C-alpha cells in the first residue's frame, strides 16, 4: 500500500493503483474513526502545518482532525491575516516555514498552480488542499471512497457532475479520478459554466439536465461559486435552480438507487433542494464529510511513510 510521489498535488499524477491504495487505507481509518479510541500514531512526532490562503472552515477542520487523530502536532496558519498582507511573496513564506522543519504542509491557495510552486521550494511533503480552479485531490478521493462504499465498486458507473464546472477544482479532480477508474462521466451545466474543449477529456457534455441525468448511478452536485462570478454567467439564481437545480422530479430520471452528493457548503434552493439534501435514503452528503477525515488520514499517512523512507535512505533530515 503505497503512493509514489513525495507530494500529493493532484489526481493528475496518481495511477489507479495509488488511488486504490489511498482508498483501502482510508477504509481502515473510517473504521478507526467510528471506534471509541479514534487514535493512531502514524504521524507521531511529525509536524503538520495547515496553510490556508483562502477561507475554509470545513476542509481545514477536516485536515486538523485527521492530523490530530494520527498524533501529529498540528498548527493552523490563517494566511490571509498574516504576512501576505505585508507584501511577502508566496515563495518567501514557504522558505520561512521550511526553516521551521515541518513534515507536512497542507496548502490551499486561490491561484491555480500556486501549490506546485510552493512544493518546489520546500523539503517536506506538500498536500494540495485546493489551488484555484486547478485541483482538489482529497475532495475527489473522498468522493471516490463514498461512491465505492455506497455502490460497492468504483468502475463502470454512470456519474453525472452538475453545475458550475468551469470554476470548480472539485470537478477537475473528479473528472480525472473517475476517468482513471473507468467510469462514464457526464457533465451537466449551462455552456457558460463549462470549461473550453472539456469534451476532449473523455466526458459527455449536456446542457439539458433532464437528458443528462437519465439512468445515472451517481449525481454529484457542485456549489454555484457565487464569490467567483464576475456576474453574467447565468441570468439569475432562480432560473439556474429551475434548469439545473436538483429536485425530486429531476432525480427521478436517474436510477432508482442513485445517490446524491455535494462537496459543500450547499446553497439550498440554488443548486439543490433542501429536502433532497437531507433525505437519508438518497443523500450521502454527511458520509462525504466523514470520509473526508478518513481519506486525509490515509493520504497523510502514506506521504509520511514516503518521507520517513527517504530520510532513512539518505540518512539526513530533508
Amino acid at each position, binding site marked *: 500500500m503505497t503512493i509514489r510521489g513525495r507530494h500529493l498535488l493532484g489526481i493528475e499524477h496518481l495511477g489507479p493503483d495509488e488511488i486504490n491504495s489511498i482508498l483501502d487505507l482510508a477504509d481502515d481509518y473510517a473504521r478507526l474513526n467510528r471506534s471509541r479510541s479514534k487514535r493512531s500514531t502514524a504521524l507521531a512526532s511529525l509536524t503538520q502545518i495547515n496553510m490556508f490562503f483562502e477561507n475554509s472552515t470545513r476542509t481545514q477542520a477536516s485536515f486538523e482532525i485527521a492530523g490530530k487523530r494520527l498524533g501529529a502536532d498540528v498548527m493552523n496558519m490563517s494566511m490571509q491575516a498574516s504576512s501576505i498582507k505585508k507584501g511577502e511573496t508566496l515563495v518567501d513564506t514557504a522558505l520561512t516555514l521550511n526553516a521551521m522543519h515541518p513534515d507536512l504542509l497542507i496548502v490551499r491557495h486561490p491561484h*491555480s498552480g500556486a501549490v506546485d510552486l510552493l512544493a518546489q521550494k520546500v523539503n517536506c511533503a506538500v498536500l494540495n488542499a485546493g489551488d484555484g480552479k486547478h485541483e482538489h485531490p482529497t475532495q475527489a478521493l473522498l468522493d471516490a471512497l463514498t461512491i465505492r462504499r455506497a455502490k460497492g465498486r468504483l468502475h463502470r458507473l454512470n456519474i453525472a457532475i452538475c453545475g458550475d464546472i468551469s470554476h470548480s477544482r472539485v470537478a477537475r479532480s473528479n473528472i480525472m479520478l473517475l476517468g482513471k477508474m473507468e467510469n462514464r462521466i457526464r457533465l451537466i451545466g449551462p455552456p457558460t459554466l463549462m470549461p473550453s474543449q472539456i469534451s476532449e477529456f473523455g466526458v459527455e457534455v449536456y446542457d439539458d439536465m433532464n437528458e443528462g441525468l437519465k439512468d445515472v448511478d451517481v449525481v454529484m452536485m457542485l456549489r454555484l461559486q457565487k464569490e467567483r462570478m464576475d456576474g453574467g454567467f447565468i441570468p439569475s439564481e432562480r432560473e439556474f435552480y429551475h434548469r439545473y437545480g436538483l429536485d425530486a422530479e429531476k432525480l427521478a430520471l436517474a436510477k432508482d438507487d442513485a445517490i446524491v452528493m455535494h462537496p459543500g457548503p450547499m446553497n439550498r434552493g440554488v443548486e439543490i433542494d433542501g429536502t433532497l439534501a437531507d433525505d437519508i435514503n438518497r443523500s450521502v452528503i454527511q458520509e462525504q464529510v466523514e470520509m473526508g477525515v478518513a481519506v486525509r488520514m490515509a493520504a497523510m499517512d502514506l506521504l509520511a511513510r514516503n518521507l520517513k523512507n527517504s530520510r532513512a535512505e539518505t540518512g539526513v533530515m530533508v
Partner: protein
Amino acid sequence: MTKKLLTNARLIDPENGTDSLGAILIADGMIEAVYDVAVPDVSGPEVVDCRGKCLAPGIVDIGVKVSEPGERHKESFKSAGLAAATGGVTTIVTRPDTLPAIDTPEVLEFVRRRANEATDVRIIPMAALTKGRDGGEMTEIGFLQDAGAIAFTDCDRVVENTKVFSRALTYARSLDALVIGHVQEPILSKDAAVTSGKFASLRGLPSVSSMAERIGLDRDIALVEMTGAKYHVDQITTARALPALKRAKANGLDITAGISIHHLTLNELDVADYRTFFKVKPPLRSEDDRIAMVEAIADGTLDIISSMHTPQDEESKRLPFEQAASGAVALETLLPAALRLVHSEQVDLPTLFRALSLNPSKRLGLDTGRLTADAPADLILFDDGAPFVMDRTTLKSKSKNTPFDGQRMQGKVLGTWVAGTRIYER
C-alpha cells in the same frame, strides 16, 4: 577609415532572395560593393575571412523593452546593447512602456542621450501614442517625431476608446507617422494568462479565446480604412486573424503585421507545470496556430519577426502563474530560435532575414536591412549550424527570463558590425 573586405562569406540577401558565396567591401560605414565568388584584388583593405559562414544584414528588432527609465535593474541600455550585439541585433527599436512612459519629448530626449552614451548598437526609440499609455489623450506626436520617435505605440495596451484611437490615427496620418497597435478585444482578454482550450481547462487558468485577437484586428482594420493611417500590428499569433489581414492588405490598406519569436517556436503546452518563463503577452497559442504563423512568415502574410524582448526579474516571475509578470528576454535567442524554422525546412534563410532585417527597416523607413551597395554596413556573421545548450546564466541581459533555458539550439553569432565597425566578435 580603412576599407574592410569580408571574403569567402555565404551572403544571405533578403532583397534578392539569394543565398550564395561572395564578398562584401565596406568603406566609411557603408557597403561599397558586393562581389560574387570572383573577388577582385584583395590587397589594400583589411581582409576578414568568413570561412564560408553566413553573412547577413543585421537584425532590426522592433519592440524591445529597455527598462530605462524606471527599472534599470532589469535592463539598461548598456546591457541591452551587449545582448543585442551578441545576438546579431544591430538596431533596437525601443518600446515606450517604461516608468514613466516615454510620452513627452523631454523623456524621449533623456532616453536618446542615455542610449548614445551606453552602446554601439543603433537605438531608435518609439513613443507612446497616448499620454501615460492610458488611452485617454493623444501624445504630442509632432514634437515627439521631431525629437526622434520613429513610431507611436501604447505597446500591449489597447486604446479601448475607439474615438480616441481614431483621432490619434487621423492625426498621425497628417505627419505620416507609423502607429503600432496591439490587437486584442480588451474585455475578453482581461486577466487572461493562457489561451482557451484543453490545456487551459486542465490547468484551471484564466484564459482568453484566440478569437479576441481577430476581434481586435477587425476593429483596427476598419479604423485604418476610415482614417488612412499607416499601421503596424505588433503581433498576430492566431490562424483565425490571418484572412482578415490578407484582405486588408489586398484592399490596399497601409497595414503590416509582426509576430514574436516565441509565438513562432513555442506553443501553449510549453507552459507545462505552470512555468512562468513561458508567460507572454498575448499568451502562447495552440500548435495549429503556431504552424499557421510559420507558414504566414514563409508566404509573406506576416512581415516582421521581432524578439518582443521583455526583461523581468526573478521576483516578478517567481509567483503563481496568474500573478507572474508577462514577457521574456530574447535579444540573444532571437536568431538561434528563428533558425529552428530554417533547420525544419519551413523557411529559407533569405526569407527569414526578410522578416528579421529587411521588412522592419522598410516599414520604419530605414536604409538598413539590405546587402547592397550604399546600404549601411550593419552586418552579422553567423554559423547557422553551430549547436549549443542554452544556459540562461550566460545571457548578457540583466534579466535572465528566457523560455529557452536548457534547450538545444543551433546558430551562433560570430561577429556583428554596425556602420562598418565590429562591435562583437566570438
